[in-house]
């Protein structure tokens, strides 16, 4: 037998697919799957959230409060805690957490609640409040989120995102860190109806504690003025729609016939200015 070498035409070992087309097709398919999973799991979260036990939420709380400072509360925090404790006495059927207030030095006017009973208030918010009632309203609003167990819902889906990304990219990937940071800085956004429900709860609690709703809308009124100045401001905030919230609160006050009552002076604001001068970032 004589061997005659020849060159082989074409190449069967390489698939005749365009790698770019292949790439985009795969990306789209995977995004579709993630979207479907996100929607499905979101529905699951809505179902599960009200059924999560207090014990589990407490455990979650520890996970998300790890970044909060330990040790003795500052004078400012102790005063806020007194306001909160007063609210808690009247707070109906709140989940039995240990509720604690933390103050963080920040120029952002915001407050948020972490799962498990911790409330973080930014120092700029303390300076903005003119009466104790305003601060109580903000705290009561956060308690409203606890009462409706909103964060489980808000966090739940974030947590599921965290899970998906750990499966896809591994435990300590940059994507994972990104999501985790987003969650721990607690810029979770509640839906408009969740905010409204928390507002209504806060209004009721304020009325019970202070014998009236004086100061309830003051804070949001100030914020809605801000909104006119910088329309962008509230896009980035976790508590949007102050203008419509003011209107909704005023309407609720009228319908329920809450008494106005007395405003208490804000003894905190001067302290806040003093104390956060050094802390401000």
């Amino acid at each position, binding site marked *: 037998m004589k061997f005659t070498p020849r060159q082989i035409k074409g190449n069967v070992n390489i698939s005749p697919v365009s*790698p770019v087309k292949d*790439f985009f097709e795969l990306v789209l398919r995977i995004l579709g799957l993630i979207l479907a999973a996100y929607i499905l799991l979101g529905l699951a979260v809505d179902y599960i959230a009200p059924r999560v036990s207090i014990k589990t939420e407490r455990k979650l709380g520890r996970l998300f409060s790890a970044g909060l400072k330990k040790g003795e509360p500052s004078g400012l925090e102790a005063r806020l805690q007194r306001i909160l404790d007063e609210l808690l006495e009247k707070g109906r059927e709140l989940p039995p957490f240990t509720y604690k207030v933390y103050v963080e030095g920040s120029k952002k006017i915001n407050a948020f609640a972490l799962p498990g009973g911790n409330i973080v208030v930014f120092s700029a918010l303390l300076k903005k409040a003119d009466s104790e009632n305003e601060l109580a309203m903000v705290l009561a609003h956060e308690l409203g989120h606890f009462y409706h167990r909103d964060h489980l819902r808000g966090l739940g889906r974030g947590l599921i995102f965290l899970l998906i990304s750990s499966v896809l990219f591994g435990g300590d990937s940059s994507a994972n860190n990104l999501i985790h940071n987003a969650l721990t800085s607690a810029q979770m956004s509640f839906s408009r109806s969740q905010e409204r429900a928390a507002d209504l709860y806060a209004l009721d609690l304020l009325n019970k504690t202070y014998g009236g709703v004086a100061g309830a809308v003051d804070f949001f009124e100030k914020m809605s003025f801000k909104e006119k100045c910088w329309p962008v401001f509230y896009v980035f905030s976790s508590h949007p729609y102050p203008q419509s919230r003011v209107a909704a609160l005023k309407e609720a006050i009228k319908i329920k016939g809450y008494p106005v009552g007395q405003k208490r002076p804000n003894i905190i604001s001067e302290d806040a200015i003093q104390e956060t001068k050094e802390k401000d970032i």
Partner: protein
Amino acid sequence: MLDLIFLVIMIGVGYFAGTRVEKKHYKSIEEREAKFIYLPAVSSKNLLEDRPIDSTLLVQGNAVIATDYFKVILAGLRNLLGGEVSAYESLLDRARREAVLRLKESAQGADIILNLRIETCQISTAGSTEALAYGTAVYYKK
């Protein structure tokens, strides 16, 4: 967001650099395959012609081809859904053919290469592919 931009840049650079290098390599492979067409390399263990042998020699060719970031991502995406990893096909093809070419280059003056074997392995977790071709070069009596 910065991470995402960085990722897109890496994939883009990987794609354009990788495609360029691959095109050049295939051009060189085809040229050299045409040049070495006179030297057959077969998988047969036995002589194909009944001719007296002067000498034999173990010859080998070795090639390592690196992947690029675009291929890594493409293969990674494919790993999620299953199916053919076409991204790596050209890597293996190039490594294999380059190894055979180097084997032929090391068998200067031979008449045929018998018992050609090709082995492959992954050389690093980053995705470089190695192909080793070895065989017996046969020199006939002139």
